């Protein structure tokens, strides 16, 4: 790494008033041709480029981003990382990502502030209890740490939760994954961008893709706002806008794009040292290092690209938060925003080749893509480089919607939908 960050570089730069830090990634103009182009400069796209350069020795690659890197869903999520999914295929995928998270700051020489503070999923009715217990067993068979907590243990683990049996949706227990936690979302995008840029990847911001040039059943390049760029491998990682890009290639995807909202409160002293998710009432809460409560709400039911979301969704979430955490009743919310999430019918992602040669899609992460960022990038890079999926993402192909071999994580996996 050209400019390795360390305590010594920090001291050295402190002595020069921090005025000589070098740019962390380049700002090049696009070349005429690349060996591969990644469309979308979010965490997943930058991670894909990073692993393509690092593990597959593809150096002549570019990442095209229509806005600024990490400005989409990477910068809009609630940063929850966990791998306690029900099905074997999902467990393999998400735990692969979690294992990469555990060493990511060292790998990137960039502090992604990965904090394994645990993620607790609450059960509010008897079916929740059965489903979550089943999931803990499935997790443990797959080597993923998971424990069932009864109501008293939930209260002990997170004392501010209201465990009164008299509330509308009483806490009947919960599951806990201790290896799960949070990370700093911007740092993930920046760390991967810096690492990729260091290996010669061109990160081109403010460059929107306008069309995909095809010659028969293979791709030839991209029409962009910065002109035509030739390539025969295109990896699309455009989250909510995946269908828009697919449409340019004459392809239809099994996706619906919907606004998902989150909000943060004013900063307060440490009050909640873990992540608590409550799927039945759609309320997720953790506390950022700045002290803000980070609250995740649900998606709207309709297709929209507005990055806003409906007020009634936020209202419903805050009602649930207030009942579960009466201590927050006087907290003021500072900011609210929406991100456009691309949801698959089976609530599992697509990391796949398409029937167009050289066109690959990594999409459908829906409401929970952030946690998978390193694994998604690693496996998508493998798929692009070898024109074959890795065994961990083989099940997440586009053809599963034709064969019927779905990875149905809806409701089954503590996923929020």
């Amino acid at each position, binding site marked *: 790494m050209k400019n390795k960050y360390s305590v010594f570089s920090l001291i050295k730069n402190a002595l020069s008033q921090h005025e000589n830090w070098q740019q962390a990634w380049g700002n090049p103009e696009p070349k005429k041709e690349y060996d591969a182009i990644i469309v979308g400069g979010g965490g997943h796209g930058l991670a894909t480029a990073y692993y393509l350069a690092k593990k597959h020795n593809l150096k002549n690659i570019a990442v095209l981003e229509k806005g600024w890197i990490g400005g989409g869903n990477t910068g809009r999520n609630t940063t929850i990382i966990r791998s306690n999914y029900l099905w074997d295929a999902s467990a393999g995928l998400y735990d692969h990502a979690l294992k990469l998270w555990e060493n990511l700051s060292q790998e990137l020489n960039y502090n992604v502030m990965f904090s394994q503070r645990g993620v607790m999923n609450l059960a509010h009715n008897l079916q929740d209890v059965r489903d979550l217990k089943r999931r803990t067993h499935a997790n443990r068979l797959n080597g993923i740490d998971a424990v069932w907590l009864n109501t008293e243990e939930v209260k002990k683990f997170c004392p501010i939760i209201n465990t009164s049996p008299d509330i509308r949706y009483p806490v009947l227990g919960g599951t806990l994954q201790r290896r799960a936690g949070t990370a700093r979302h911007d740092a993930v995008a920046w760390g991967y961008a810096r690492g990729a840029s260091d290996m010669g990847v061109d990160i081109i911001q403010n460059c929107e893709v306008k069309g995909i040039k095809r010659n028969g059943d293979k791709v030839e390049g991209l029409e962009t706002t910065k002109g035509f760029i030739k390539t025969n491998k295109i990896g699309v990682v455009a989250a909510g806008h995946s269908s828009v890009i697919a449409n340019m290639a004459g392809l239809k995807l099994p996706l*619906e794009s919907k606004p998902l909202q989150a909000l943060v409160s004013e900063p307060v002293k440490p009050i909640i040292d873990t992540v608590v998710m409550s799927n039945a009432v759609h309320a997720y809460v953790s506390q950022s290092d700045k002290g803000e409560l980070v609250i995740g709400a649900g998606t709207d039911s309709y297709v929209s690209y507005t990055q806003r979301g409906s007020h009634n969704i936020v209202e419903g979430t805050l009602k649930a938060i207030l009942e579960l955490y009466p201590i927050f009743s006087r907290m003021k919310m500072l900011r609210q925003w929406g991100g456009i999430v691309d949801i698959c019918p089976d609530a599992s992602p697509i990391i796949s080749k398409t029937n167009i040669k050289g066109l690959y899609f990594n999409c459908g992460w829906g409401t929970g893509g952030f946690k998978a960022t390193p694994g998604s990038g690693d496996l998508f890079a493998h798929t692009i480089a070898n024109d074959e999926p890795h065994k961990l993402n083989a099940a997440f192909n586009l053809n599963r919607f*034709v064969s019927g071999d779905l990875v149905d994580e809806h409701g089954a996996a503590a996923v929020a939908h």
Partner: protein
Amino acid sequence: MFLINCPFCGERDQSEFSSGGEAHIVRPKQPTELSDDEWAEYLFMRKNIKGIQFERWNHVHGCRKWFNVVRDTSNDKILSVYKMGEKPPVNYK
């Protein structure tokens, strides 16, 4: 968040309605004849348009009737509302 002009009840808040997704997906007339690809197309593949979309809505907390809406998904503006069975307006493409 927006208002929807239910053709039966008039203008109401969107939260009274439930979205039925893309409109005019025709149910297969002879399901036994369908190939796997055609089933996938019917069941799962969606246009998911950024822009003008034809969609179905149900006034679930009102008259509980289904109807069609033309909406711009890039700004949530509703351009037209028409009843089930009526021809979609032709001035939007």
